[in-house]
């Protein structure tokens, strides 16, 4: 195998090889869904499935650049942040009569980018541990959400409610997903993104190679903020109200999706494909399990299965990665990316 071998398939495998396991899992889950809940494959079922999974997909994409930036960066605050966008939209903007989509989307993206940039500056500028910063962010936002409102309530403007009740697969939520994906592929072509990956693999080497560490890390957080804001808007559309208690459990689900998507929290490895597939996997697991009647134990069965599949997926992924390393030495150098 030489460097010059760059057939389309080869390039795809190089770039997205990390997502092989989640993609395989996706195929299995779709087959299971076809047997257990065929309604998923009707126009109505698919439309609702997309809308239901959309916030999770966006939130997982938000975590991706932060995870890729390395230093064990998993943004624990993601759940409460999406929740904050949700209650902020419903109880500040919509309650005071602001219902224009322009303002609502701008507000959602604005506040979450601001929050993420502050987190990024604390992590990169002051060199605080990411886990400490994001855990603080988690606690602060969870508290702020309950200060904004102490019970789930409120309503959404008609256009946003309509987003949550799609009539076909080509709904606004699908549009937002596609836009998010396109935005990612564009970002992935910039040198900023290359810097991000280099930094994720080895910060010292990146520094020596001229990568501006602070700027790149804050940039990763800013991108995460955009996706978190969109996740907040989509989640608000799904529940058509504001829920302050939402968010605490959500972080766990998003992190599960991230890991299931093959994205390494060690940094460097990952991408939008993995995030999307991981999120859909998580959605389909809970979807498939809901068709079985486990009675009182159902929620624990779901968590148990998440855990088992996660460990299994990581194990299989690691075995693949090892054999890949042995098989494809390049010009005497070990392939460390992908």
């Amino acid at each position, binding site marked *: 195998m030489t460097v010059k071998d760059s057939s389309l398939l080869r390039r795809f495998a190089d770039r997205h090889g990390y997502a092989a396991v989640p993609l395989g899992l996706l195929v299995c889950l779709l087959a299971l869904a076809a047997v257990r809940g065929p309604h998923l494959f009707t126009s109505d079922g698919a439309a609702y499935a997309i809308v239901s999974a959309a916030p999770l997909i966006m939130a997982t994409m938000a975590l991706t650049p932060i995870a890729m930036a390395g230093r064990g960066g998993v943004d624990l605050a993601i759940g409460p942040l999406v929740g904050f966008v949700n209650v902020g939209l419903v109880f500040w903007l919509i309650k005071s009569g602001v219902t224009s989509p322009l303002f609502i989307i701008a507000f959602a993206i604005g506040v979450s980018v601001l929050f993420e940039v502050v987190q990024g500056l604390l992590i990169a500028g002051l060199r605080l541990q990411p886990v400490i910063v994001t855990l603080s962010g988690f606690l602060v936002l969870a508290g702020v959400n309950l200060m904004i409102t102490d019970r789930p309530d409120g309503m959404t403007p008609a256009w946003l409610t309509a987003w949550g009740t799609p009539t076909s697969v080509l709904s606004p939520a699908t549009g937002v997903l596609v836009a998010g994906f396109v935005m990612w592929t564009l970002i992935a072509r910039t040198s900023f993104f290359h810097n991000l990956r280099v930094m994720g693999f080895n910060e010292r080497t990146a520094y020596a190679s*001229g990568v501006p560490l602070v700027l790149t890390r804050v940039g990763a957080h800013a991108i995460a903020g955009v996706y978190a804001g969109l996740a907040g808007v989509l989640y608000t559309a799904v529940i058509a109200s504001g829920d302050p208690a939402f968010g605490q459990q959500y972080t766990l689900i998003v992190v599960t999706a991230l890991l299931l998507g093959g994205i390494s929290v060690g940094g460097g490895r990952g991408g939008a494909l993995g995030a999307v597939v991981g999120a859909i996997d998580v959605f389909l697991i809970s979807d498939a399990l809901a068709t079985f009647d486990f009675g009182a134990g159902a929620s624990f069965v779901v968590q148990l299965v998440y855990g088992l599949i996660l460990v299994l997926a990581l194990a299989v992924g690691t075995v693949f990665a090892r054999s890949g390393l042995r098989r494809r030495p390049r010009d005497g150098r070990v392939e460390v990316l992908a």
Partner: protein
Amino acid sequence: MDPTARITIISPLKTDTDDRVLPGRLRFHPPLPLTFGQSASTHAARAQKLIAASRTLSTGQMQAPPMKELTLLKRTQLALLAVLAALVLAAAGCAGSNQNGAGSGTPKSSQQGLKSLPSDIRAAYTDFDGPTGSSPFANFKPKQSPPWTIGYASSYAGNTWRSGSLNQLQNVLVPAYKKAGLVDKMIVTQSNLNDSTQIQQIRQLVNQGADIILLCCSSAAINPAVTYAQARGVPVVTFSGYTSAEGSVNVYGNYVQGGAAMADFVAKQMGGKGNMLLVTGIPGAASSDSVDRGVKKALKKYPNIKLVGTVAGQWTDQIAKTEVLKFLSTHPQKIDGIVTHSAQEIGVMQAVLESGRKLPPMTIGGEKGAACYWTKHPEWKTRLFNVWPPGSEATGAMSIMVRILQGQGPKVQSITRNLTEYGIDEVRAITPKGCDVNDATWIEPKDWFTEKYLDNFFLRPKAPLGKDIAVPGSGSTG
């Protein structure tokens, strides 16, 4: 861009000479100020210099980085991004200009539904916080004949309350209605307090052919799923909580009144003055908040009572115990009274006793252990309040579901009742001598949503089984 070219900057540095390329001289080299505004060539030149320097220090065999790798965001890509952003905003703008204003999810403010109820029943609705419009299922006809399938979208299963209600549903109610040929089966899903999962599960239950959906302890977030079910001819019954959506019939006690009665009792026992502690449930959960509203409302009458603290016991004994212990150890002043939600009073009780204090006037709810302690220490100023008995509320919900499917026509969106209280004599009557002070199973009220009481809420009433079903723990045989 060839993906393999990209890595040439890093691979050799990382794999061959990771430590050697970062000698002291380089470590203190100022970082390259790579910004989007800077011209590519300047940056590339500086990077080249740095890497050349590092190369001289390493063992060689290194390639110069391809220049194109360091080019900044291309103009075409920037333009594409801008166009994309503009498109999203424009699409959003269009959607908004067409239809602004509030959408679904408005609770029906009409009092029409309440007016159709007998006046003595209407009294139970004082301070009630659920929707009280007329029900859209007054003329509902089911899609199929009995036996029907029930979908139960439960949101949590991790405490004694949830297991109490599920146990009553699965082991008592479903078999009884099955025997009568009214119910075929009940499918249970659990969402572990995740609203979006519960929404998805409700839709799935509808799609799987459930004739009616049962929800527990829901919030406004579930409204879209209730509307989804209603649009497909599937009514939703919510017990121990409410949704403000029109398509749900809500069945629960008047929790605001319950909270007020509990606070009133403790305040009176305190002599109208002193320090009070409130042990609440889950902040943000609607029924938890309803009780707290009642407590705060009642306390307005007692200006000399100071609410010195509110801790969240999460309706779980272990958490309540930890939280109250924490509170007591940081608040040395005397606590003259405690109001606590139920399904955590054993924990509160243990915390007070373990801290070496005397049990102040306090409320208890359905946990048998607390009632047991009371029968052994009758001097304790307490009272048992039935606010949300799990088995009884589930029993009421089951009857209401079958009545709706039978086309009996519910009159109002929410069905409620006053709370009941047990004094020491009633508690003694249902508590055996050899009781256990740690028993966390539930005491149920004698009568809660009886068939006779429920008849008041239907246009064409008829008890589905012709009799009441006994609730274990209530001491009544039904």
